[in-house]
């Protein structure tokens, strides 16, 4: 693994452009900036093309003889299938409004990370192959031949885009580079050019139900550990159910939250909340993944993995589905699931059994985000809360890209947050809500071999956190995303030491007074509560 430079060094980003035009500037694969290639086994398990041992840094990528044909045909096919793709290939005026909006450009200064140039990587080939002007004028018209170098360039840069959609907010035509990256990665997948950090979780999820490959007994076991911890903190033993037929609600959350902290604290939060409500719900070990790494490979794979959620809801005979905190997961659920695997007419329009609120906004896809669910509970005074238990925290809020720009859930988590903590500070306006910055590790780029890329990509986000850390003493970064919880932790350790990362429902559970609980002395992390800490200090 390459050595990660010091923060002070990485913060010195040079925006100096190469002397030569981008088409004439060769791409250098820099260690730390890309992930390991996919392993043959991961591709074979799900029937992806061209499984083989390969390494991205090698000259020979072991491509099929007719790889060029495959790609060109793949483009033609997708031009017919996606109006977005066809349109976005044609209408960009290269005004440059999107150029400095990408966190990867801000953090690397690499011109190919300007969203407009990332699109040109593929657009140039489109011109050459699919437009009259490009066929005749070639380079004069911005066209270029598809060569092996071009293909490598695509791979390098489509795995330096986290499909965060920030660029699309600023483009006067709504050109969404995420859409182009999605299609670019689909094309690469036709040749088996995936990364293992995505391909591995995809095959795990296909066979075992979740990205981490947790088998049924491991899921139960992992939850047991959490239940022990909950008992230590609250004195209450919770007994959740799994794969239970006839439950009212199926709960689906990203598997990351069952595996490592701080995600596990969020999962503990769910368990405690549902227990306190006496919710008639079940976990599933088959549909044990809310997230969808398949979406980072191809539309078809996304659909294949997603199918389990409705299938399991149907098998168990639940009324509706409740979804945990996650980012890309909710883009897929909001904008794809019903189209792919619906209509879910065997389910009922979600209705909170506690407040009676009907979630009309989810009346077709039948799935509610847990932040929406909890906001409704709090609004209706259904929870006893003591926000002072979170007084040791000064919290700021990270809007996860896909929840913000692919769903529009901005206020619900803020409402919940303000109800469970006393100290909440927003980051600067241009870095939150629809303009929020990616953690730098989305779309399956949260591996370890590309740590330099992740730290560079997360630079603008970290910068904004640093601002509120220095000016307002913020020490906790809240969010509703499993990838965030995993990746922001590393990002904070690197750029803003002293700021922790947590999910929303960890804070909810800390503040929530449960019936019959013992007097709590610590939070879910086992840290002494502020009141206790104050007493200890006095003593």
């Amino acid at each position: 693994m390459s050595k990660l430079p010091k923060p002070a060094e990485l913060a010195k980003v040079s925006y100096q452009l190469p002397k030569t035009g981008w088409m004439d500037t060769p791409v250098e694969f820099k260690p730390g900036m890309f992930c390991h290639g996919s392993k043959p086994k991961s591709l074979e398990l799900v029937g992806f093309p061209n499984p083989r041992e390969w390494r991205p840094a090698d000259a020979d990528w072991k491509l099929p003889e007719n790889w060029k044909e495959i790609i060109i045909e793949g483009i033609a096919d997708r031009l017919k299938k996606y109006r977005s793709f066809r349109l976005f290939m044609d209408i960009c005026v290269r005004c440059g409004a999107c150029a400095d909006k990408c966190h990867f450009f801000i953090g690397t200064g690499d011109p190919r990370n300007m969203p407009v140039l990332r699109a040109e990587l593929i657009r140039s080939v489109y011109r050459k192959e699919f437009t009259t002007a490009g066929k005749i004028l070639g380079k004069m018209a911005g066209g270029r031949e598809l060569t092996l170098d071009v293909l490598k360039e695509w791979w390098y840069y489509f795995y330096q885009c986290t499909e965060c959609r920030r660029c699309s907010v600023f483009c006067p035509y709504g050109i969404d580079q995420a859409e182009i990256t999605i299609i670019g990665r689909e094309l690469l997948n036709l040749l088996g050019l995936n990364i293992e950090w995505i391909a591995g979780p995809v095959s795990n999820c296909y066979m075992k139900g979740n990205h981490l490959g947790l088998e049924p007994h491991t899921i139960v076991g992992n939850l047991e550990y959490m239940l022990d911890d909950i008992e230590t903190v609250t004195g209450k033993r919770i007994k959740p159910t799994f794969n239970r037929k006839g439950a009212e609600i199926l709960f689906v959350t990203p598997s990351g939250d069952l595996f490592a902290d701080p995600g596990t604290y969020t999962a503990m939060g769910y368990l405690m909340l549902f227990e306190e409500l006496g919710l008639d719900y079940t976990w599933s070990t088959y549909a044990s993944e809310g997230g969808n790494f398949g979406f980072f490979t191809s539309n078809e794979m996304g659909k294949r993995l997603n199918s389990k959620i409705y299938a399991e809801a149907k098998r168990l005979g639940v009324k509706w589905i409740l979804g945990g905190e996650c980012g890309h997961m909710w883009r897929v659920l909001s904008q794809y699931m019903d189209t792919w695997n619906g209509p879910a007419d065997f389910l009922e329009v979600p209705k909170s059994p506690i407040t009676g609120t009907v979630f009309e906004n989810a009346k077709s896809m039948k799935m509610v985000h847990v932040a929406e669910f909890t906001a409704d509970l709090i609004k209706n005074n259904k929870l006893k809360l003591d926000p002072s238990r979170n007084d040791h925290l000064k919290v700021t809020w990270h809007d996860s890209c896909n929840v913000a720009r692919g769903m529009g859930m901005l206020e619900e988590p803020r409402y919940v947050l303000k109800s469970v903590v006393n100290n909440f500070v927003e980051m600067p306006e241009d870095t939150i809500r629809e303009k929020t910055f990616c953690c730098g590790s989305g779309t399956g780029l949260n591996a370890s071999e590309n740590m330099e890329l992740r730290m560079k990509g997360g630079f603008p986000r970290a910068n904004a956190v640093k601002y509120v850390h220095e000016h307002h003493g913020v020490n906790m970064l809240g969010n509703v995303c499993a990838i965030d919880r995993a990746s922001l932790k590393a990002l904070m350790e690197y750029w803003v030491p002293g700021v922790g990362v947590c999910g929303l429902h960890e804070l909810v559970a800390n503040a929530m007074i449960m019936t019959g609980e013992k007097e709590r002395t610590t939070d879910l992390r086992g840290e002494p509560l502020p009141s206790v800490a104050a007493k200890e200090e006095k003593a």
Partner: protein
Amino acid sequence: MTAIISFIAVLLLVAIGYVGGSAGPSVRFLFGVVIPYAAFIFFVGGLIARIMKWASSPVPFNIVTTTGQQKTLPWIKHSKIESPYSAFGVVIRMALEILAFRSLFRNLKTQLHEGGRVAYGEAKWLWMAGLAFHYSFAIILFRHLRFFIEKVPVAVQMTDMLDSFLQIGAPLLYATDVVLLGAVTYLFIRRVAIPQVRYISLAADYFPLFLIFGIGATGVLMRYFTKTDIISVKMLAMGLISFKPVVPDTIGAMFFVHLFLLSVLFAYFPLSKLVHMGGVFLSPTRNLPNNSRAVRHVNPWNYPVHVHTYEEYENDFRDKMKEAGLPVEKE
């Protein structure tokens, strides 16, 4: 380099127009009648073909980009335009995009300061120049109707009057002439002056700017300097739209340059990035409502896929499931 090539190309077009306009009657007929007709047909046909082509590809998913709060619980303030739920909201959102360049208005300038602090500053110049350019272009086109309609409509007269409100010179100076040339000049300068924008620019980005500047400049030359015979130009224009084309001898060569450049612009339009005029209406990140959870969006090419069923899963893990106390379908 690409800028220079585009510049030379436009100069060449100017020369061609000039030579054509200075030649004998049959060549002047070619430049005054045949080419404009052809360009117009190409423009309309090409644009329709392009739009049909876009429309022929479906929108398989609702991929709206939300830039505001979704509609959820009744007590949470819904952002009706930035995250529209109804068709009405979408119409307003689109109107703002098209008439006011809403998204471009958000533009920011990202700067990295000493000590590694990133700051975001206002950046409204592109938005302003963009609006100035497009509106003056539209108004100028509209004013040109006075050549094509025998009795000039009141709306056109009014526009004329308002546009010359500065009351300078004779003939009166149109504000839009100044704004158009100024805005195009700005758009060109920023293209070469901002390193990132220069880096992404193609010949196809400079060419329309020079071309439009050329059209504007020849128009201004004719109106204020070389003094073209308006009556004969109107005769030509009226002839064109009534399909009884005539090319009066009294029209100077400068007019032919103007007309030829415009013809080139029309013909070039459907082949180039200028089709953004039609495309902006079709953009699926903007023209869809954010209601995909409430109303199922249908994908016409949705097809069945291989899935790993629960049955297969249970077969793989039955023993482990039983051991962990999980219910199973088959013992």
